[in-house]
């Protein structure tokens, strides 16, 4: 079966696109899928450090496009998961070094080689974003339950519709259940009501994500992490499974608070 090409985008920067890609890649590869990630953020390369592969880079995406190396040479194999590869962004070039047709050609060559191609889009709605969505079969829009992130996600969804890429599916990242409970954060339902697109995952705020990025080991590899669990569930949904959404609201119940006070959680 040819690969499914999934682009992750957001409009606003800093909402967790790269973290989402890295975690989905790890979760999919752990399930046995052959995964290739492409960092589409030319000039602001980051997926390599989040995956802990920064020391292995020899060639990058622009080297492939400009013919300085073969595709296989730019594919960096993960340290732990042999079926996970990264094609890094070029750090010393700008977004004009790549065109949408370059991306289409590159991804076409990858389709027969793997099960999933995951493309990390840069923030914004300009050329780098257009390049990243050009080859996509499916687009995931990452947002946070926060006014500017939701507004930018809505803009991106509008552009995706106009470009014939469907409205996309939504990942609500960094939801803080305690703040939602205090009614000081938009709930997942509020965000869905505003954006009115399909939901593919809700990821709770989790300190483990920062620890994971410090170490270059995404939380999806940690069986105890709640954010990791949320990303593993999204990966299974991408594979076509029906997975119920995590009950994040339950963390505030009296019994759980007592357990936490007693140091059991």
């Amino acid at each position: 079966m040819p690969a499914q090409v999934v682009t992750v985008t957001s409009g606003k920067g800093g909402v967790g696109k790269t973290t989402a890609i890295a975690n989905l890649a790890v979760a999919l590869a752990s399930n046995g899928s052959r995964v290739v990630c492409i960092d589409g953020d030319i000039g602001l390369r980051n997926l390599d450090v989040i995956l802990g592969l920064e020391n292995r880079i020899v060639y990058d995406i622009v080297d492939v496009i400009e013919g300085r190396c073969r595709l296989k040479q730019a594919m960096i194999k993960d340290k732990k998961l042999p079926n996970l590869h990264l094609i890094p962004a070029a750090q010393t070039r700008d977004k004009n070094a790549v065109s949408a047709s370059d991306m289409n050609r590159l991804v076409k060559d990858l389709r027969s080689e793997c099960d999933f191609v995951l493309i990390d889009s840069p923030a914004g709605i300009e050329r780098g974003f257009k390049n990243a969505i050009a080859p996509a079969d499916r687009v995931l829009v990452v947002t946070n339950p926060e006014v500017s992130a939701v507004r930018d996600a809505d803009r991106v969804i509008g552009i995706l519709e106009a470009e014939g890429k469907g409205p996309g599916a939504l990942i609500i990242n960094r939801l803080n259940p305690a703040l939602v409970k205090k009614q000081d954060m938009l709930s997942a339902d509020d965000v869905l009501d505003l954006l009115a697109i399909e939901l593919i995952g809700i990821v709770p705020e989790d300190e483990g994500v920062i620890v994971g990025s410090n170490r270059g080991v995404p939380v999806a590899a940690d069986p105890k992490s709640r954010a990791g669990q949320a990303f593993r569930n999204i990966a299974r949904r991408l594979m076509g499974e029906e997975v119920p959404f995590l009950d994040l609201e339950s963390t505030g119940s009296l019994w759980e608070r007592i357990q936490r006070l007693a140091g059991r959680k």
Partner: protein
Amino acid sequence: MSFLDKLLGRKNSADSAKERLQLVLIHDRTDLTSAELESLRDDLVATISRHVEIDVTGMQFGVEHDGRSQRLVADIPIKSAHRRRAARKSKTK
């Protein structure tokens, strides 16, 4: 939301966020500013008034969203023919 906010009857911040976003998204999606909407409303009132007498004070007008599509919704009360006839009579006297 703090206890003080509740005591003062202040709205919780999540509701404010949602309400503000609802308005912002309608404008972003339709590319209509509040001023443009107002002038559209005035034109509508002028046009309809040429055919039938309406009650402008009881009128509701705005953009509502239904999923990802927007619709312009106008609810315009028409003054009853009875009252209009009475008014016309008093004028002709």
